[in-house]
């Protein structure tokens, strides 16, 4: 139960990596979570599924480059300091 801020950062990096790895064509479309499923419905009630799909797509678009940087930094630090 000894959570530290460092473990929170680790959790955040791992979760963001997990979301970024979901491939659009090979996986998300196959289970019905592709882009075309999320955008529908122009009313003012997007629904939970559309919000989740939007979130996944935006995380993948926005966090791609920062994740490369952060992951490289993590790898270097872990190699140097164990």
């Amino acid at each position, binding site marked *: *139960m*000894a*959570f*530290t*801020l460092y*473990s*929170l950062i680790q959790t955040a990096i791992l979760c963001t990596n997990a979301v970024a790895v979901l491939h659009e064509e090979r996986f998300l479309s196959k289970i019905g979570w592709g882009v075309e499923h999320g955008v529908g419905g122009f009313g003012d*009630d*997007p629904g*939970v599924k559309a*919000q*989740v799909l939007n*979130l996944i797509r935006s995380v993948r678009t926005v966090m791609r480059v920062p994740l490369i940087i952060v992951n490289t930094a993590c790898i270097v630090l872990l190699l140097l300091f164990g």
Partner: protein
Amino acid sequence: MDYTASQSGFRQRKLQPNMRQRNSTMDGSDGSQLFEDTSGVGLGAQTGYRNQMAGPQAAGLTGQSLLSDPMSNLAMAYGSSLASQGREMVDKNLDRFIPISKLKYYFAVDTVYVGKKLGLLVFPYMHENWEVSYQQDTPVAPRFDVNAPDLYIPAMGFITYVLVAGLALGTQDRFSPELLGVQASSAFVWLIMEVLAVLLSLYLVTVNTDLTTIDLLAFSGYKYVGMIVGVVAGLLFGRPAYYLSLLWCCAAIFVFMIRTLRLKLLSEAAAEGRLVRGTRNQLRMYLTMSIAAAQPIFMYWLTYHLIR
């Protein structure tokens, strides 16, 4: 609506004579005068300086030989202008990262408010009006409204919780100074995760609410009061007292959160208690209930290992 508007208008009129006495020019960012400006430096200091002329003059006479030298005068003027420039730069840059002016609102409390709010956290059953009163589109400072969220009680509660946890561990001979840091960071991490989870669920359910992140932080921090009461009761009177007081505080926090969040998250009709059908309102109701139900769970989770 009219009643609250006239009430806040009345309070505003009572505020203004105080403001006019302190400074003739009002600071633009501090428009609603959350705090009385008791510092000697600042925009409105001219009137204050004129009032205090009698004091420094006696001190100035003895040091006059030092101050009359023109070179040191120049040096002092240059130094003070450098210092004020540096301070402005720091203020401007700091304001970009941490919204200090917004944070100030949450700490504008006084003893009466803290007393009433603590009573409300432990016994919310008699309170009737849970609406936050507004003053021309901005919420009134917590000093004037019991229902407004503040950050003072959560911050103090968190620190007190860490100290009480150290005390509890010390009575069981399990204490070491690192454990204080472990407890503090552990509770802090749980708080951050709870706020992030609530933010995520608010995004997913597309609730149009004026709850800011700091408001959510404040609401999540109110549970520390109940935790402290439970742990102290357990230390003084043993395990049954711990369970009883924790049960009471859990129920109180549950009711408090539901009544507070009901007005902010649910639509108008549902907030008044009428049954409104529709999946969206149902989702919002579930969201409110789960946020309120998470509080007792966290309260038990963070304190049960302290009472053996």
